[in-house]
């Protein structure tokens, strides 16, 4: 972190947020700072570390599955690994991901504010995040071993197993609390701190994405909080609420779990969709097509997404009416998502497309998300769901949406905003190389899972029939290519922070939103004077016309 602090990049009179000297210096100046930008960087560092741990578990799982039978670990370890992989990736990477890192760093800047509404609560949320994350990992070292329930903690198994389930539950509870605080902060920030002239329909689309997400964070997370707490209480005291032996109903647990965890899927994807809407106009030099449709589709996704949870439970026992309603609602969510995809593609049409790294990631997002999204609609069909339920088809769908979607969106944001955040430029060629490794590795890793899932390969199984061997082999090889891409990307960005080319230019990509009008890297309070907003956020067409006029005159 000291390297980050030492990075210079001040241009103009005021020092950048990286050089700013507050009450504390050195590392304390970072971990006690309430500056939203520094908190964003803290999140970026801690999140990346947890992400790499999660990748490690995924890598080992895939390695185990390279051939049938035992390869490198016993079944119990495998069960713990897929649980840890799930818990870490969901609660520590994908859910906080874009809001905690880029939301923190850029939301105030994008609306023309100096900070979020509650800076101290913002810092608190980071501490809770780190504490929860360490708790989840510490469980590995304790006697009893890490939880082996899967990240869903389904009862009754989660109240019977002898592993450290309570610690994992508490970790998820604390991380949920951190997520609530972030959401609460963002909703209030967007309502209260917009710069003069910044009306709702002048907000950049990533703000709409973050705003919708923040509401889901606030409204859905408490339900999983209480549910996980109840499982912990059940284990400690045996009150019977979820224990079938005492009259409780395990299916109720599933309902409560998914009442949060389905909207959580939209917590994960909406901010990434915001990033896509942000990047596409910049790199195709076009005004975004259908601004209001994209903005309202975020809200619609947040709304419908909260009403579809039971589609995770079609095989768990439900009335026909229930199945029908939830199946219908599930398909309805596809409409606002499709609206976004059509609008993005329409924005690209006749644009002058620059295939810079952020744009590559965004195009990959659209491609992968479309596959993930459409297979999601397939699963919403009752008859197909019964065929593919609990198979690796679901795993493939989920990773196409969450990794191909949110993950690639995160990488897009990282490459898009990196020069603004650090005042340094990464090696663009290496960045593109790592992208291709990631993209090819990703498809090799997850696409075979669609096929073998369709043929009946169950998810979470330690062993498999010989007929699935070739698919698993391809998949594992894909995981290696993917990891090479990831490491190359991390190396490239780390190198850029240490000795990358210094960027002092305000507007590296020619963007129109507010972050490109301030210093690189931003000064402590973002703006030297409060900006007054007069124009809509994406005015590229007009630029071109002005340029053309200048050229002709």
């Amino acid at each position: 972190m000291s390297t980050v602090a030492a990075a210079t990049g001040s241009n103009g009179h005021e020092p950048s947020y990286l050089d700013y000297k507050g009450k504390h210096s050195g590392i304390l100046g970072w971990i006690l700072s309430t500056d939203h930008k520094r908190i964003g960087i803290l999140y970026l560092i801690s999140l990346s570390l947890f992400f790499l741990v999660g990748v490690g578990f995924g890598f080992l799982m895939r390695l185990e599955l390279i051939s049938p039978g035992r390869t490198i670990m016993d079944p119990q370890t495998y069960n713990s690994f897929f649980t840890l992989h799930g818990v870490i990736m969901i609660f520590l990477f994908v859910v906080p991901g874009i809001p905690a890192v880029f939301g923190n760093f850029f939301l105030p800047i994008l609306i023309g504010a100096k900070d979020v509404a509650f800076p101290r609560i913002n810092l608190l949320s980071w501490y809770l995040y780190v504490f929860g994350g360490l708790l989840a990992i510490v469980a590995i070292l304790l006697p009893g071993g890490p939880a082996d329930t899967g990240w869903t903690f389904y009862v009754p198994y989660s109240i019977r197993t002898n592993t450290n389930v309570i610690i994992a539950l508490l970790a998820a509870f604390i991380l949920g609390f951190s997520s609530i605080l972030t959401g609460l902060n963002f909703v209030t920030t967007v309502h209260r701190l917009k710069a003069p002239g910044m009306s709702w329909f002048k907000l950049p689309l990533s703000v709409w994405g973050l705003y919708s997400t923040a509401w889901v964070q606030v409204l859905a997370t408490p339900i999983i909080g209480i549910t996980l707490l109840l499982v912990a209480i059940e284990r400690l005291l045996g009150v019977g609420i979820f224990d079938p032996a005492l009259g409780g109903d395990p299916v109720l647990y599933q309902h409560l779990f998914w009442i949060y965890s389905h909207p959580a899927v939209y917590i994960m994807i909406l901010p990434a969709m915001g990033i896509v809407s942000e990047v596409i106009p910049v790199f195709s030099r076009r005004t975004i097509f259908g601004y209001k449709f994209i903005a309202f589709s975020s809200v619609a996704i947040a709304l419908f997404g909260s009403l579809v949870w039971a589609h995770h439970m079609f095989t768990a026992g439900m009335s026909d009416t229930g199945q029908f309603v939830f199946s219908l609602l599930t398909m309805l969510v596809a409409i606002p998502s499709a609206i976004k995809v059509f609008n993005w593609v329409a924005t690209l049409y006749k644009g002058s497309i620059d295939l810079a790294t952020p744009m590559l990631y965004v195009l990959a997002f659209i491609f992968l998300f479309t596959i993930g999204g459409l297979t999601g609609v397939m699963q919403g069909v009752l008859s197909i769901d019964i065929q593919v339920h609990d198979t690796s088809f679901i795993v493939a769908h989920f990773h196409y949406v969450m990794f191909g979607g949110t993950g690639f969106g995160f990488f897009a944001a990282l490459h898009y905003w990196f020069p603004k955040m650090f005042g340094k430029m990464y090696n663009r060629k290496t960045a593109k190389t790592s992208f291709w490794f990631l993209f090819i590795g990703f498809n090799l890793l997850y696409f075979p899972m669609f096929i073998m899932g369709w043929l009946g390969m169950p998810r979470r199984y330690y062993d498999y029939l010989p007929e699935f061997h070739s698919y698993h082999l391809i998949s594992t090889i894909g995981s290696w290519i993917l990891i090479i891409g990831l490491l190359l990307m991390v190396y490239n960005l780390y190198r850029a922070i240490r000795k990358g080319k210094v960027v002092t230019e305000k507007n590296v990509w020619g963007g129109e939103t507010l972050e490109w009008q301030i210093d690189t890297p931003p000064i402590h309070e973002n703006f030297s004077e409060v900006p007054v907003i007069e124009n809509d956020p994406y005015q590229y067409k007009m630029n071109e016309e002005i340029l053309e006029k200048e050229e002709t005159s």
Partner: protein
Amino acid sequence: MSTNESTLVEHVHRDDVGSRMGMWLFLFTELLLFGGMFLLYSVYKFQYPDEFFLAAKELNTIMGAFNTAVLLTSSLTMALSIVAIQRNQKVLSMLLQMVTIFLALFFLVNKYFEWSAKFSHGIYPGSEELLSKSSGEILFFGLYYVMTGLHGIHVLVGIFLIAVMTRMTRMGKITHDNYVRLENTGLYWHLVDIIWIFLFPLFYLIT
């Protein structure tokens, strides 16, 4: 260093509407937290109506009603303390806050006696006495302990918060033109009160 500090002071940002908005959002999360429990309650009540009826008879309605009155009064004194500070009556406000704390403690003491009476009859999660009863009754008492317990924790947090407010009022950090913290604490306290208003009939009055 000194110049930076002075700019810091210059930009200290105060937004009462924003603070209240944040508090309301937080209260939503609290409502949903308890909402999950109320959902569980209603499902099991629907599933085991007769057993719930039987089990509820074991609760002491008079004690519950008394506690309801205590908590409602504490909400009144809390609201009055805010009115007092608005009228710049610092001492009166502090006094009313302390009365609120006293009533909250009184509520918890009552709760303690109620719970220990149940415990002495062998009714607590996992006890032989309780496990010999029907599923519906086990669930009723399971929910009773968890929900009133969670509510009790909220009362404790409330007591702590109000105590902090009293201290801040004494130190002059809460004044007649800057009382949003006290107001937010009041909002929290009313929420704790309202949740009890729902818990009381659901557990004590369904007989």
